[in-house]
């Protein structure tokens, strides 16, 4: 069996890979995927805590309900984000984040 700390460290690694990708990549679609990675990493630690707190073999379900809410909000976020990306493609003919410099220029 795995200790709780290993779940948390796994979640931390997954989160930081997502964070690094969101900083490094210029393709907005990939940045959106990295955001999904970060949300999933948060879900992993929620599930690990729900199991660590459990009594008599039954996990604490508050954390799992929160993870379910995170999933639902992620679905809404992806819907809005993809619509924004399509709008951006219409306006700029590309999905590179480097093309979004009209405020700077």
């Amino acid at each position: 069996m795995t200790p709780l700390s290993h779940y948390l460290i796994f979640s931390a690694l997954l989160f930081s890979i997502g964070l690094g990708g969101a900083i490094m990549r210029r393709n907005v679609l990939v940045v959106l995927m990295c955001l999904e990675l970060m949300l999933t990493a948060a879900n992993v630690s929620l599930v690990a805590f729900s199991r660590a707190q459990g009594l008599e073999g039954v996990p604490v379900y508050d954390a799992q309900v929160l993870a379910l809410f995170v999933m639902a909000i992620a679905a809404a976020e992806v819907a809005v984000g993809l619509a924004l990306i399509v709008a951006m493609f219409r306006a700029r003919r590309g999905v590179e984040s480097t093309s979004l410099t009209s405020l700077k220029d």
Partner: protein
Amino acid sequence: MNPAIQAILFYVFAFGALLSALGVVALRNPVSSALSLACCLAFVAAIFFGAGATFLGIAQLIIYAGAILVLILFIVMMLNVKDEQPAAGHWCYCIVGVVIAGMMAGTISSAALRLPGATGGRCPVHVLIEHANELCPVSGEEQATQPQTPPAEYGGMLPSISMKDHESDVSLLGKRLFTHYNMSIVILSFALLAGALGAVAVGRKLRRD
């Protein structure tokens, strides 16, 4: 299941998930990134199964790997996105990203290893609950209603999940969701509706006038 096999499976799935997460970041083609993300989410769903959260694992597979990934792939193919070409000065962003991600991983990992009660090998949440009276004193009546729970191991094993015959993960989660969190789920449905309306409003064609 044998606990040793469960532990080995956790490490195998975690390794696979981290590897495919690196694939999401490293692969140039957005379609390969999306498929790598699907792999990663499937591995995470397997970890959820191992942790006893069967409903969440299935929801992860259906919602993320099924719906969201297909939507992302659909958009990638519709927009005909090309491979990302390395630009001049891009390595600067790469160094910044790696440094920030490494600092984040180190911070969270060290925090996970130093949580309250970690040195005593106890679950940090239990320690916080036990010391809640010192942090914010409650009246005697409230104190009596607080569940007295034995502290779980933190550095050691997680408690195993063993359901009783007449109860399943889905029914317990559903009971919690539709009794205690009933109002939250109504508000959440409004958030989803707002998201759908926002997607339609952003995505419609702009009039040039």
